[in-house]
Structure formats: C-alpha cells, structure tokens
C-alpha cells in the first residue's frame, strides 16, 4: 500500500474527494432542514391531515376513531416503558438491556402479592415497585459500580447478563403458563362508555392518566428536588459533579431505583393490555419501547412518551390502512420511519445534541 503509484492514488483520491464533497453537501442540507422546527411541524401536521382525510374516506369515521384509540392505547404502553429506558440512559449513558426483564419480574411479583397474599391491586403494585427499586439499587451497588462509568461496553454486558438471569429465573419460579393480570381500575367486561360509536374502556383511560401523571411527577422530581438536581448534574457531567462534591454512586443508585420503579409500574399497566402474560411479554414490547425512546431522544422523558404515541399511531394506522403492509409489516414500517427521522435529526426529536470536545 505504501508503494502505490502516484497516478493511481491521484485518481482514487479525486474520486473519493468528490464523493466526500457530495455527502458533505447532503449533510449540510439535512442539518439546515432539521433546524427549522416550526416548518417541520407544519409539514408533519399537513401529512397527518391528508392521511386522516384519506383514512376516513376509506373505511369510515368510526373505524378511524377506533384505530386512533387503539394507537393511543398501544402508544402509552410503549411510552411508559420507554420512560424507564430513558431514565437509565440519562443517568448512566447506557441502555439497560435488563430493564424489561426487571419490570417483568416486578409484574409477576405484583400478581403474586395480589393473587396469593390478598393485597388490593394498588398496594400490590406499590409493593412490587418498592421491591424492584430495592433490587435495582442492590444491582447497581454490586454489579455496576465496580466499573468505570465510561466503560460502556462492560456495563451493557452486565445488563445483558442480568437479562438472561432474570429471563431464566422467572419461569423457574413462577412457571411458564400465561397468567391473567389484575387491574387497579374498573376492568370488568362492561366497564366502558361509548364515544361516537367507539368503546372507550375505563381501564384504558386510567392507564393514560397514570402515565401522564408519572411523567409530571418525574419532571417535578428532577427539577424541584435536591436529588433530582444531583441526578441532572451527574447525567450532564460526571467528573464535574464529583468535583463539586455530589456522591455520584448514590445518585446513580437513585437513578437505577427510580427507573426500576417506573419500569415496574409501566409493566404492570402494560401487562393488563397484553394479558395473559408469560415470562416473555416484556421482550415483545421492548423493541417498540426502544424505538420510541430513540425516536424521542434518549435523554428526554417527555420525548419518550410522545414518541411512544407516534410509534403506536404509525403502527396501527399503517397496518390498518395500507393493504400492502398489513399488520405483520407494520412494525417494520414504523421502524423504517424512525430511521428516516433519525437521519434528519440524529439525536431524536427531543434529544439534546452532545457537544464534543476534541
């Protein structure tokens, strides 16, 4: 390679330089495009309106509303789990592969507390949340803290191993049969009301409200409390936080505990939608939630929920209205849309761009 002839290398260098320039030009164009937020929002709105008109003329207004309702259901589900993913990422900069399984364990705990120890559902959920938080704090202390926080690969591997361990442990403890899931909201067959011909179930509404409240509470927690401040500081700059005297270990532990509790809450609610559940149920939801978390920006809690709704809408609407795609490919198309969005905005819709220092 060191002894290439001069003409050869001149030729290839020229071609490569040209390609470089073209790609560079494409970058700049994309950057400029993504910068104009208001205009992009306008485009998005126009697409939605055009699509809705098409949809209503295709299958009628009632089906359209029903599908919107379905997508909100699914969307809140994906978003709820995505919040937990985002919290861990904010704190530590890694994706916790075990998040789903930890939440799944929490759900089975909740079912155990409710079915076999007779606790009322809300108490069972709270109990499961507390136990999950404690467990996660323990995991952080023993398995994560020994590592340098910048050693992302090792930490991700640790979370992957926890994934396997929990995924194997739950069926050994609780068996493999699918289980029904209790709900804290009125969830009997007839607990719904009709809105323009669409059945809106109380339990679904309950879940939407709970997720919304959770987002609110978390934002308050992060913005108004001392520990929240420490959390935001650590997630922004670890070294400086240490210098300022913040106990980074404790704060990260808090982050893990909070994420686990939120994850368990989300999973308990999610499980109700997808019942009867077996030990693999979170794995199915996780890919949607990853997609949602990424789309929204991996460090934005609100973004996670909004993106979750978007994923839910894309999945239902595309699957329902585009015959060619059908339900099986709907997820793929949703993922494709996310890829496209990420190319335009590489940090997600609401994520913050990282400033890199050389």
């Amino acid at each position: 390679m060191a002894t290439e002839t001069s003409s050869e290398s001149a030729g290839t260098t020229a071609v490569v330089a040209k390609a470089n320039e073209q790609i560079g030009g494409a970058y700049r164009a994309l950057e400029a495009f993504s910068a104009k937020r208001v205009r992009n929002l306008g485009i998005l709105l126009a697409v939605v309106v055009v699509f809705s008109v098409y949809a209503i003329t295709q299958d009628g207004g009632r089906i359209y509303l029903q599908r919107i309702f379905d997508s909100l259901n699914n969307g809140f589900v994906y978003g709820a789990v995505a919040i937990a993913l985002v919290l861990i990422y904010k704190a530590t900069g890694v994706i916790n592969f075990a998040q789903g399984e930890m939440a799944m364990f929490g759900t089975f705990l909740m079912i155990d507390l409710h079915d076999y120890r007779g606790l009322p559902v809300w108490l069972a959920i709270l109990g499961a949340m507390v136990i999950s938080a404690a467990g996660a704090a323990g995991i952080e202390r023993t398995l994560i803290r020994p590592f340098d926080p910048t050693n992302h690969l090792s930490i991700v591997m640790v979370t992957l191993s926890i994934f396997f361990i929990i995924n194997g442990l739950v069926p050994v403890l609780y068996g493999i049969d699918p289980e029904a899931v209790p709900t804290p909201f009125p969830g009997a067959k007839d607990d719904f009301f009709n809105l323009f011909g669409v059945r809106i179930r109380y339990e679904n509404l309950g879940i939407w409200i709970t997720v919304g409240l959770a987002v609110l509470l978390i934002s308050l927690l992060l913005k108004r409390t001392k520990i929240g401040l420490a959390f935001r500081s650590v997630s922004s700059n670890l070294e400086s936080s240490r210098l300022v005297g913040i106990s980074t270990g404790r704060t990260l532990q808090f982050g893990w505990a909070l994420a686990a509790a939120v994850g368990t809450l989300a999973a308990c609610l999610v499980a109700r939608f997808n019942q009867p559940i077996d030990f693999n149920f979170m794995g199915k939801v996780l890919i949607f939630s990853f997609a949602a978390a990424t789309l929204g920006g991996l460090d934005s809690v609100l973004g996670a929920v909004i993106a979750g709704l978007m994923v839910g809408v894309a999945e239902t609407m595309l699957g329902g209205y585009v015959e060619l795609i059908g339900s099986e490919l709907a997820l793929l198309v949703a993922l494709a849309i996310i890829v496209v969005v990420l190319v335009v905005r590489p940090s997600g819709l609401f994520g913050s761009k990282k400033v890199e220092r050389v």
Partner: protein
Amino acid sequence: MRSRKLATAATLIAVSGLVAAACGDDDSGGSATTVATTAAATTAATTAAATTSAGVTTTAGATTTAATGGGGLVVPDYSKLGQDATNKKLYKGTGGFSIDVSKCPSDWNAKQGITDKEISVFISLPKSGPLAGFGLIADGAINYFNYIGTTGGIGGRQIKLDVKDDVYQAAQTKTNVNEALQTKKYAALLTILGTPNNLAIWDSTNEQCMPQLLNGTGGADWGDVENHPWTTGMQLDYWTEGSIWVDYLKKTYPSGAKLAMITFNNDFGKQYANAVKAGIKGTNLTLAKEELHEATAPNLTNNFTNLAATNADVLLIQTSGAFCTQAMAEVEKGSWKPKSVVMSATCGSTGQFFKPLVDQGLTGKDTIIIETIKNPLDPVLKDDPFVKLWVEQMTKGGLDPKQSTYFTGWVFAYYMTEILKAAEKMQGGLDRGNIMIAARSIVLPKSPVNLLDTGVKMEGLKDAYLTEFGRLAKYTITDPKVLGTFVPLDEKSLINVEGKLGTFATVKKASVAA
C-alpha cells in the same frame, strides 16, 4: 512484507483448492428409496375414498354416540406380520406396506437401541425459549413410560426416553437428530415437534431407516407413506380439521356467510388458513379478511380492529398459546359480535387457554372447536379410568395434575407403547423393522386417550393417518366464574373419517382440486 506475500500465496492456493472442490460433488437427490413400493400402492391410493376438503361428510355408519369404537375396527393378527421367514431383510405389514432393509445403509442394525432390559427412544422439542410450554410433553411421556415399566414393560423392557432441547428451531432440531442418529443408540425417534422441524429431518431419517414416529404436529405431510415410509404423524391433521369446519359452516349458513380469520404467521397457522381457503372455493362462503400475526406480537388489538371493520359473520381463530386467549378476549370485549367463533384444536386446552379468561371476568363461551383427545381437566371425565390413572401417576411422579400438557405427553407415549407391544408380537420379535411395521399397521378399536374411546387405525399404503376423527363441540358454561366444558353440538357431531383420508397423495390431490 514477506509475511504478507506468504499470506497472499496461501490464500490463492486455498481459493484455487476451493474452486477445484466447488465443481460437482454435491449430487442432488438422496430421497429415500428403501421401501419397495408395490404396485398395490397406486391402486390403493385410488381406491381410498379420499373425500377431504370438498366433501368431508358425516357418514351414517361412522358416527357413534355409544362407545363401540370406530365402526368395526378389526385388529390384524400381529403374529402373522413382520419379518419374512425366508428373506430376513423384508418386513411386511398390512395394506400392502413392506420394508426392504437391504436398501438401508450397510451398517443398519435392526436391534439398535433394543436390549433385554431397555428400549431407547429419542425426542427433540423446545424446553426453553418462548415455546417451552410444549416441552412438558416430554415429561408427561417419561411419566407414562415409567408407569409402563412398573407393569412389566414391553416384555420386561423399560422404555427410556432421551430428551434434547431445540428451542423450536428447525436447524437445532436437525443438529440434535443428526447427533442422535450418529450415536446409533436409539431404536426410534418420537414426537418431534413442529412442521419445519420435522421437514428438516425426514429426508435423513428415511435415508437412514430410522423410525420417526408420531410427529408432534398436525401437518398433512406425514401421510406421505410412499416417499417417506419411516415417518408417521398422530394427530388429526390441520387440513382435515379445516375441512370439517368448512363443512360445518356450509351446513350452518346455507345462504352464505362472510368469514374473517386471525392466523398465526407460522407453519400450522398457514395450513389451517390454506385448508379453509381451498374449502370455500366455489361455495357461498367468502373470506372477508385474513389477519396474520407474528409470534412477537404483544397483543391482537390492531388485528381485531381490522377484522371488526368487516363485520363478518364468522371468526376463525387459527393460532396457539396465549394468542388463543387474547383472540377470544378481543371478541368478547369488542363491539363486533360474529355469529360463530371457530377455533383451532391447538387452542383446545381449557385449563391453559380458558382459565385466564375466567380470571379476567370473561368466559369464551360459545366458541366452537374440534376435539379429539380427552380433556383430563373436564369434570365430565372425572371418573374415566384412564384420566384417573393419569391423575394418580402425576401425583406419584410429583407433577402437576392440573397441567393438561402432561396428558398430551401421555397420549403420544400411549401410542408408542401400543406400537412397541404390537411389534413384539410380530415375526422376528422386537426389532426396528417390526416397530416400523407396527407403526403402520396398528389398530386400536378402543383408544382410551380419545373422546368416547374412539378407535384408531393405520393400514399401510391404504391408510396413513392415525387419528381420523373429530367432534365438533361448543364451549358451554354454567357459572361464569368457573371453567366450563366442551359440549358436543349434536349427536351427529362426531365425525369419523377413519380410513377415508388415504395418504398424503390423496389429501394433496384433493387440496389441489378443491
């Protein structure tokens, strides 16, 4: 620099060596021709009145309400079958079936896996991963074989079942089975699960003359006695099941109806769907929508919204696992109420699929299903001697008598035991050739694992399917808080087409013609 030149040279040599090797030693083919297919085969195939998809009818002679078992099944004299007296390499069974083991590999051993004390059998099925629930079939089978061991076994021999996990992956099944074949330890393979899994191995098992018995899937392919004589199934095949549905729907909706389907996007889901689509061709039943769902779908809400939009009269649920429960729940909770809901037999376990409905405050009532095997959790069968035996042995073995999948294991193990017992009676005694003959000639006028003890029969080239009956039943409840039972639709609802399906050739022909 030198090392690089060396590496390049080595690479070139290796590549040229590969190119030299690339040119043809991969001869295609290798289908098993170890059975001398007799001329009788072709005549048998045409005489077998295979009125499948278009015309599965309840023939008067075949329906039974009393437990007399399959309309006069005659057990052949096993002692006259088996190894030929003069040609030790030839084994003969009923229905024109015979095996010529001189066509088998030269190291084929008729007594492989069989000793005075033990018969070794092998199974590969999912024990981990999402379909691990089916893995309990192996544990149930082992439990039954242990029981048989306590009652004297097969001429004093204990049946030993070795289990390997394949996570339902066909490639892993192939590896497991290849290894099992190469250890030369096993007399036969039992109940391999999954259509793609069995398809992956049936060429090699037939080539190696390894009995591949009682496949754990309802694929119609296992009736292919002409090309794959060493492979048999057990269940009522999905194709016939779908055809029975179509027949029932034609009778129930003589002026036509719209059908909607929710189908598992995998091997057996598609078989049901294809059977129905073929069956309704040319009738006034129309398919309004088919929704496919993946194994990774968290719920079926989107699918059902799409189905509900058609407002169809009939819903066909063709899936398995928790999706069965989810589908029934969607129907019950939604505003679309189809007039009939028909569900595949893969969703038949009340304990597994209906109980979670009860826990949700739903019932799943009026769902129609075709039953073949007894449901051990059915209170109506509480005093059935076979079910009682099962419960007793479950408790003895420390297994959960509320888990009906163990009973499924018993079903396969029961048939295996009967086959082995018949093989022992044959000429030449218990060896693998006779096991295969027995598998293809077995007749049980009363089969205690079936509803009403309905009998089963195999007859060589004439009848390659074991279970050829089903009973249309509707799930009925008395108290919504308690599990209900399947109640037969009417006295004529036991449809017995024993001996009518023929072989895969006839089933396939009917499916193409339909």
